[in-house]
């Protein structure tokens, strides 16, 4: 599988580290809602299709990326710097 890093270009999967589901939204750190924290830590949808994920180009430019990947075909649909998507989320 090749991942097209926005800085380095297409690179082999072996240079990347999976960093988890990018659809999760962390509860307010001050929250004591046990159900919300349980869902954040443990609940996963296990999508069959396009899935938003965090990866790090750990064996390259070290950038943290947000990738939309098909879990059925491993086709990478989109790649962006994670910081950009996080900034967009915080602005929203």
């Amino acid at each position, binding site marked *: 599988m090749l991942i097209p890093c926005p800085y380095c270009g297409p690179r082999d999967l072996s240079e990347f580290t999976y960093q988890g589901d990018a659809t999760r939204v962390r509860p307010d750190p001050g929250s004591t809602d046990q159900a919300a924290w349980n869902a954040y830590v443990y609940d996963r949808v296990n999508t069959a299709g396009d899935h938003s994920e965090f990866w790090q180009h750990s*064996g390259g*430019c070290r950038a943290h990326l947000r990738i939309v990947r098909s879990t059925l075909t491993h086709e990478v649909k989109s790649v962006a710097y994670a910081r950009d998507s996080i900034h967009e989320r915080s602005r929203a």
Partner: protein
Amino acid sequence: MVEIVSALEPVYRRGAHGNRDGGSAITLWETQPGSIVQVTSWPGKEGAALAAINAAASLDVTADAGAGVFSDTRSAFGFAPGRWLMVDQAEGMGDTLRDRIDTQTGTVTDLSHGRTAIAIEGERAEWVLSKLFALDFSLAAFPVSVGKSTAHHEFFTLIQRTATDRFDLYVYRSFARSFWQLLCTSAEEVGYTVD
């Protein structure tokens, strides 16, 4: 300045090695630059950091991904967003850059004692490096002066192409001896000379 002792010294065997049919297809040597410096800019300060590098080193690095330049004594290239490696055969480039890049622009990390610089040159340089790294080393995909960051297992490596048949590699000093032995083993097939 403190004398830099080569990390490769116990395993650095000058001369011709490996397959001798047709002579050596590549030459390996340690370049031992006096300065290896990493510059990292804060987001939005890339232009200021790059201007400081170019002014300090009399180079002309552009902001494009992986863009690099080199001369007989100096080289510089980008290897990550907002990060550049600057190499000088003379000592003291770390201090020079630190004077020009303030903490509001970015950081300067002197890696002169923390990295080992290895050159590989010859008609089969691309072939040998392709055994180690999942990169396309062809001239079209990896033009002269461009830099790339990559890894072979634990060997995180920065590579700059400094001629059509030459690559300069920068590896962690603590892994350098092991990497050198791996590089030599990989080159045995084509025959190599340690200069």
